[in-house]
């Protein structure tokens, strides 16, 4: 058993950490205020290669695998979850579906441009009437010669307003249930695709989501990801990797909340001594350390499983439920340690508290993850 991080991943980590410290951290308040990441900063992120990390080298990717990707997501989440959300929607969801199940033609056509960031990807699964019950989506795709015609709408699509291409799930055979779902790549400029207004969210400002509408939207049959009827499987497999990377972002966010809590508790003097000298505060810090440590290593372990070619659906569900809930515990304690200052917008903790809430909901709620885990536990031998 070897827990050391490979040298190239370490160099990736220190590079992303420096970039985040020098270029992204100073912008946090601006991104929060404008609800947008400046385009020149997105370009710098692309130039560095942040949009390419998990993709294979043969498609212009970084070739760092799931572990490298997770380490980078941790650093991005540590400064602002908006960044890890943009990269997550692009790499772990939209791009990963193409990389996992797409034909070689589809990979050649989309992945190199996604790796440079020239084309931004989004993942469109959720619908007004199909959230957790993803198999019952209502968007349809009707075969018409060498095309499919899409009709319906998708909700809360991360990167939706800015994306150049969408990984879309639609029903090709209603009788077949989850086996009647097919995945497609849909270009933004496809006639019949329109983008709804940008959602107003509680947090994650800077990472834009919106509704996407399909009205007689004609997509070439060669844009099917994998095979017709295999879409639900593509979605579930894609979400496995996505959940692990999301766990990594949670670890980064939680680490920052803990680091800030340590600094603040040393600095804040009440009753004539720093509050860090109170056992009540010390125990909160210690509990958060236990949480972050456990989250980090279960994330790295799941990533290692993926990189060594093993399935990690079970671990992905465990990571997702644990890391999202541990983040919420850690930021809640961080607000408590910061007292009134933690409630003020001028402190990052206030933003982090709001940003953290969504992770227990999106990419599969905590409840869905527990269903997956319990199904695995109770499955007949």
């Amino acid at each position: 058993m070897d827990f050391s991080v490979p040298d190239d991943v370490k160099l990736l980590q220190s590079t992303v950490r420096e970039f985040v410290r020098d270029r992204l951290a100073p912008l946090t308040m601006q991104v929060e205020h404008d609800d947008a990441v400046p385009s020149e900063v997105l370009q710098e992120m692309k130039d560095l290669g942040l949009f390419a990390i998990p993709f294979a080298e043969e498609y212009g990717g970084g070739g760092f695998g799931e572990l490298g990707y997770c380490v980078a997501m941790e650093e991005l989440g540590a400064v602002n979850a908006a960044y890890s959300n943009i990269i997550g929607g692009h790499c772990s969801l939209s791009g990963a579906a193409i990389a996992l199940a797409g034909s070689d033609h589809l990979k050649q056509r989309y992945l190199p441009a996604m790796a440079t960031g020239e084309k931004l990807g989004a993942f469109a699964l959720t619908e007004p009437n199909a959230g957790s019950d993803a198999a019952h989506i209502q968007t349809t795709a009707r075969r018409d010669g060498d095309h499919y015609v899409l009709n319906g709408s998708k909700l809360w699509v991360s990167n939706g307003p800015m994306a150049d291409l969408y990984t879309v799930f639609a029903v090709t055979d209603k009788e077949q249930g989850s086996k009647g779902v097919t995945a497609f790549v849909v270009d933004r400029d496809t006639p019949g695709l329109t983008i709804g207004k940008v959602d107003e969210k509680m947090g994650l400002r800077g990472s834009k989501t919106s509704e996407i509408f399909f009205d007689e939207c004609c997509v070439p049959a060669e844009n099917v990801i994998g095979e017709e009827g295999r879409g639900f499987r593509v979605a579930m497999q894609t979400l496995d990797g996505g959940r692990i990377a999301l766990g990594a972002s949670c670890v980064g966010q939680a680490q920052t909340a803990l680091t800030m809590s340590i600094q603040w508790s040393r600095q804040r003097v009440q009753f004539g001594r720093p509050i860090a000298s109170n056992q009540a505060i010390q125990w909160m810090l210690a509990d958060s350390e236990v949480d972050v440590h456990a989250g980090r290593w279960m994330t790295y372990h799941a990533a290692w499983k993926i990189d060594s070619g093993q399935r990690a659906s079970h671990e992905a569900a465990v990571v997702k439920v644990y890391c999202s809930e541990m983040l919420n515990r850690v930021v809640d304690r961080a607000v408590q340690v910061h007292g009134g200052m933690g409630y003020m917008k001028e402190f990052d903790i206030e933003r982090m508290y709001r940003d953290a809430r969504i992770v227990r909901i999106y990419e599969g709620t905590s409840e869905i993850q527990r269903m997956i885990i319990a199904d695995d536990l109770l499955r007949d031998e």
Partner: protein
Amino acid sequence: MNIVVCVKQVPDTTARKELGPDFRLNRAALESVVNPFDEYAIEEALRLKEANGGEVVVLVMGPPSAEDIIRKTLAMGADRAVHVTDPALAGTDWSGTCAVLSTALRRIPHDLVLTGTESTDARSGLVPGGLSEALGIPLVTYAVKLELDAESIKVHRQVPGGYQEVQTPLPAVVSVVKGANEPRYPSLKGIMSAKRKEIQKLTLADLDIDPASVGLHGARTVVTASQARAEKSSGEVARPETPEEAAVIIADFLQARKYI
């Protein structure tokens, strides 16, 4: 155009440093980084290569662990690296460093040798001069801008109150100042390709250097005492009423110290 950049591994500049009983830095416990001053020299070398072609070779003298920082320079874009490493080098001072680096440099074809102005740990700033002396080639220090032609290099040197233009034939040693450029981050592609780049390892025996002439015993500088740096004083606090008043206070302060 072949450019060799001399790079040093130093302890992380933000880390708390402690000296051992022999006045040597306890490096084992410290994260190490590329000497930040050297990053400007690397960046300058990469830009010259991008404009003029050729090869950028990074030359490092340091323990085996220096490989981490060598990988970073390769990830930034250097073509290959030469790593002189030998247990007998522990404790080598600036004069030994110059002897080793210059001997290695004689075996690496070069038109230009770039260095930082100093290292953040020892801070002697003596190596660029020592290299030029040992190699018998011109030295230009404190470069802010470099322009190459086929046989010479034009350098803008930072001097108080402005810059001085110096032209020198090649090969030459040029030290690049902090702030001459903005060193690039290694790109992620660069990190991957760095894995496949060559790091040539050389020992003292490979370079025909007598181990007794280097290391702590060969050192020509001896540290006899050390003292912790005084705590930073709290400074002066001015409370001007108007922006105009504030501007005058700052200008007077800077002028009194000859910054402006």
